[in-house]
């Protein structure tokens, strides 16, 4: 009796897992099956595709720097301080992860567009975001920031308070302690968070096309180029998709292999 049940459990497990694996793997396989390896590199060197690739790399790296520079202080506050309204702040930080990207893009337009809330002020400083590469970076940073902040916060919070006490007995200032103790100890999770954030920025589509528009070489990143190519030039769409896939896979694989990967997974689980 228990033996049949055990078998049934195993069969159910295997079936469920196999179904999910199919869902995840078949689309990727289908994409790879459509590639003609000979033409892949040839098409890769076409100016439009190269422009999209270059723009995507520049913007996602810039967005990641922006997110790390501004996200680290916020992550530190969330990890090390208690204050009123912290819960609400945490939800606000997580919000872009679940917000439909088109809604995010529209909200960005209403906030930073020329006719938006701060448009006048920005224009006075000569800053214009819609239809510019800077706008792409802002859209990507908005969508990818939660990935870094979540991971960084977990890393900063995980530093054993005894080390901080020890630093305090040596009369180290908070800033000194941060750079000499906290930062090195939480580095794996900071790097993992930055990598996840960069990967998300690379794949950003909806907020970008809504907020920054679509112009080759200026705002047309790889995901936008795929979307446009899908409407008339399927071969280009496949090449671009495969390149995006390769970058994303490499990034995630590297993340798993380094120590940060395991820590990142642990951090997500402990949240």
């Amino acid at each position, binding site marked *: 009796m228990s033996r049949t049940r055990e*078998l049934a459990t*195993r*069969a159910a497990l*295997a*079936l469920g*897992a*196999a*179904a999910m*694996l*199919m869902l995840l793997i*078949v689309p990727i396989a289908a994409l790879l099956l459509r590639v003609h390896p000979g033409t892949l590199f040839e098409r890769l060197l076409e100016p439009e595709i190269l422009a999209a690739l270059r723009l995507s790399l520049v913007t996602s790296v810039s967005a990641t720097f922006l997110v790390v520079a501004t996200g680290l202080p916020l992550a530190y506050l969330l990890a090390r301080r208690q204050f009123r309204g912290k819960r609400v702040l945490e939800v606000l930080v997580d919000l872009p992860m679940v917000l439909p990207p088109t809604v995010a893009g529209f909200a960005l*337009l209403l906030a930073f*567009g*020329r*006719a938006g809330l701060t448009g006048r002020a920005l224009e006075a400083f000569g800053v214009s975001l*819609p*239809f510019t590469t800077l706008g792409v970076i802002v859209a990507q940073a908005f969508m990818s920031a939660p990935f870094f902040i979540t991971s960084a916060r977990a890393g900063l919070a995980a530093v054993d308070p005894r080390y901080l006490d020890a630093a305090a007995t040596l009369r180290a200032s908070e800033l000194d302690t941060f750079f000499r103790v906290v930062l090195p100890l939480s580095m794996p999770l900071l790097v993992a968070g930055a990598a996840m954030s960069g990967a998300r920025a690379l794949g950003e589509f909806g907020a970008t096309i809504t907020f920054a*528009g*679509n*112009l*080759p070489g*200026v*705002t*047309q990143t790889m995901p936008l180029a795929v*979307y*446009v190519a*899908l*409407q*008339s030039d*399927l071969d280009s769409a496949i090449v671009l998709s495969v390149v995006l896939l390769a970058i994303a896979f490499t990034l995630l694989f590297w993340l798993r292999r380094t120590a940060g990967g395991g820590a990142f997974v642990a951090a997500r689980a402990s949240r």
Partner: protein
Amino acid sequence: MKRFRAMCSARRLRAGRAASAASFGTLLMLLATGAPPPSPAAANEPLTVFAAASLSEAFREVGEEFQRREGLAVRFNFAGSQQLATQIEQGANADVFASADLRWMREIETRGLAQGKAQPFAGNVLVVLVPNFNPARIHAPIDLARAGVRLVLAAENVPAGAYSREALRRLAGEPGYPPDFARRVLANVVSHEDNVRGVVGKVQLGEADAGMCYRSDVSRTVARHVRTIAIPGAANVRASYPIAVLRDARHAEAARRFVALVMSAEGQRILARHGFLPPQPGTR
């Protein structure tokens, strides 16, 4: 104990392999048989119409009229005609295709995806659209060539985008326009939208200084936020909209009746009310 565990894991592996082999087999079967031939739709399944984005409001009204007459609901997919044509080529389940230009209808026809010959059912002309507060002070099409104007156009493979570029080329030949007018205007383009309504949206929000769209796109709600500037008649492009029943239509009979309604006096009245022109005979 150790042996027991090893046995378990071996069995687990085998079970897993069997299961994935089974699901892989199903997949192979699906792949081998390919897409099933179109089966007639269930009586209550709505008619599916793929129509150019510019037809959104007008066709929705035609759809309501169709439902009143036939008791069959109509489900619409509005997008750039180039996107709809690609979806149909990739096997999307649609009964009727209404394109905003001949190019994408021909694409469908030459691939044998249409039933019979497509018929022109409406016309349209282009206008220049600027936000109400007209930030770049554009009063005539020639102002579009001024350096620094933020212009939004539909992408070149979108019908509205192709018509816009044609109109710019024709304007260059008008008296008072510089011969490199089109090139100068195109240098001002800050975004290529994937359908004409994307252009309308960016101008309506005041983010673009100007855009080019169909006259019919300026509905009463849009008109509250924008000003339109006419393009001189000789330089304007007359858009022609063809419609066809698709080869794989599951509702072929109803699809033909939908096309008939569009062509009828009532259908044409609805289109005219939304700013469309009658079809030009002999445009094919």
